[in-house]
């Protein structure tokens, strides 16, 4: 068996989800699922862990907050204190209320853009990258399961039979 990959197409997300549950219960490992929209509930079935993107976002936000506070301390208190209408300029803590808006904006700026960049790199979606979905219809109205038979120790014939039983409309090996 020279590393064949089986692609099973479904025309309904719920049929695929039920089918995936049955196959996994029989010990078949589903490598990936391609769909035109998120299928809710598929992740735990095929063993996909919740992403840690939000934790990254939090860290980027903290970096943004510290940079903003340090920058304003440096510009306004340390490097060149400016007396503007007698507003306090001697100590950082006296000036903090006026620094709240920019601290907030900069936190959001870094959190959002940092997360977006991480998201693009982790998904490997960047300009000029070729799409890897097996069929063009997976971005329109069909749902495809990708199974590597050698991972679950099952013959292609047996797998095809099982996939057809779950309601797949097309099973193809590549």
């Amino acid at each position, binding site marked *: 068996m020279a590393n064949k990959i089986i692609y099973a197409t479904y025309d309904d997300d*719920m049929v695929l989800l039920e089918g995936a549950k049955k196959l996994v219960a029989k010990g078949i490992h589903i490598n*990936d*699922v*391609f*769909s*035109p*929209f*998120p*299928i*809710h509930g*598929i*992740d735990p079935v*095929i063993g*996909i862990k*919740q*992403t840690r*993107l*939000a934790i990254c*976002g939090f860290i980027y936000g903290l970096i943004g907050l510290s940079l903003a506070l340090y920058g*304003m301390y440096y*510009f*306004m208190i340390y*490097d*060149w204190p*400016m007396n*503007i209408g007698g*507003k306090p300029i001697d100590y950082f803590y006296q*000036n903090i209320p*006026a*620094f709240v*808006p*920019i601290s*907030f*904006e*900069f936190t*959001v*700026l870094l959190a*959002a*853009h940092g*997360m*977006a960049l991480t*998201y*693009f790199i*982790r*998904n*490997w*979606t*960047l*300009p*000029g990258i*070729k*799409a*890897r*979905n097996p069929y*063009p*219809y*997976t*971005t*329109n*109205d069909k749902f495809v399961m990708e199974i590597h038979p050698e991972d679950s120790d099952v013959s292609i014939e047996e797998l095809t039979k099982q996939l057809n039983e779950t309601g797949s409309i097309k099973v193809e090996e590549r």
Partner: protein
Amino acid sequence: MHQEAAIREPLVLGEKTYGQITDDVLAPVVGKASRSWWIVFGISLVMALWGIGCILHLLGTGIGTWGLNKTVGWAWDITNFVWWVGIGHAGTLISAVLLLFRQKWRMAINRSAEAMTIFAVMMAAVWPAIHMGRIWLAYFVFPLPNQFGSLWVNFNSPLLWDVFAISTYFSVSLVFWYIGLIPDFATIRDKVTQAVPKKIYSLLSFGWTGNAKAWNRFEEISLVLAGLATPLVFSVHSIVSMDFATSVIPGWHTTIFPPYFVSGAVFSGFAMVLTLLIIMRKVMNLESYITIKHIEYMNIVIIVTGSIVGVAYLTELFISWYSGVEYESYAFINRATGPYWWAYWAMMTCNVISPQVFWFKKLRTNIMFTFFMSIVVNIGMWFERFVIIVTSLHRDYLPSSWTMFHPTYVDIGCFIGTIGIFFVLFLLFARFFPVLPLNELKTILKSSGEQYKKIDE
């Protein structure tokens, strides 16, 4: 699967399948532009070109070509700036705040509302930039290392907060919008057959594949960006209002400004969304997706925010008397009865009185009437900013410098120009981009689609 009560009205009308949603939404992208599209595009382009001409004349000659004078130093420029920023608030409110509240009706309108936001914020940013006069020195607003004796920008000033707020708001909204667009660009990429469009959409889609892990990350980033964008929406217009509220001008120096400006922004933003979508659903045959129910929901938001704005107007008026500050009282008496009384009463009629008619269900579900009202609100909200800015300035402390503001053709031309550029961008969006979020609409088809609701009953 998520179940929805049968009595709740469906959000997707007719017997639709996943494939049909794709076909319906992508029809204008795949097909040819209609004649009405070309006509509207042509008019907008002429307006845009005239505006660009006026802006170039302004930059070449100086802001003396505007009708500003010694007393009225801010007039149409900042009026237009605040008007556009306000319009730019609906998109992120719809996509972020309504996402956090799990309001599914936002899905038919969020994509175009966000596009509108981005274009409106771009038009807003034009105004502070050109009102500087010497636009080539605009980089002075950023804290850049320099050789003017370490001259830094003033971080205590709301004008600088505005620089950070607007640029953060613009760039975060853009990223949020684009991340949602990527899977839909992938749909177009896999759908079109001609070589050049396929290449362009495949570049735009960043090689999106739509595997399970990518969708997992997609949902996470959408949620977190919505969480970040929600306070951002409120902060941006609060900061815009502080440009006025922190200066010691009677009529500006009020603590009510931040909430009053934010609700005014949402009010005007929803009006603009209605203006655009009522035309778009008709021209692009999207009546099954942008239904009367959606229009009704938006009209309800208009009543709520319009009423908040009304309460703010009256509170402001009451406090000007109750404060006992005679300059403050005069500013308001002058607004209502002085030479600019017509602007004040236009604002009051358009923003406070007229939206109250939406309490009648017959009127808020009437498309033609809603369209008319959305224009009225847009005009009213422009007058609100004009009233705040010009009537507070034109009679200052020294009666000998009292004056009126008269716009020149350059004032008018620049304003018409930004409207033109805005519509050019929006029409290009409607022609080449997926105007409804395909991937999100498909997720609600089974819970909120009409034929699935019938099966459940």
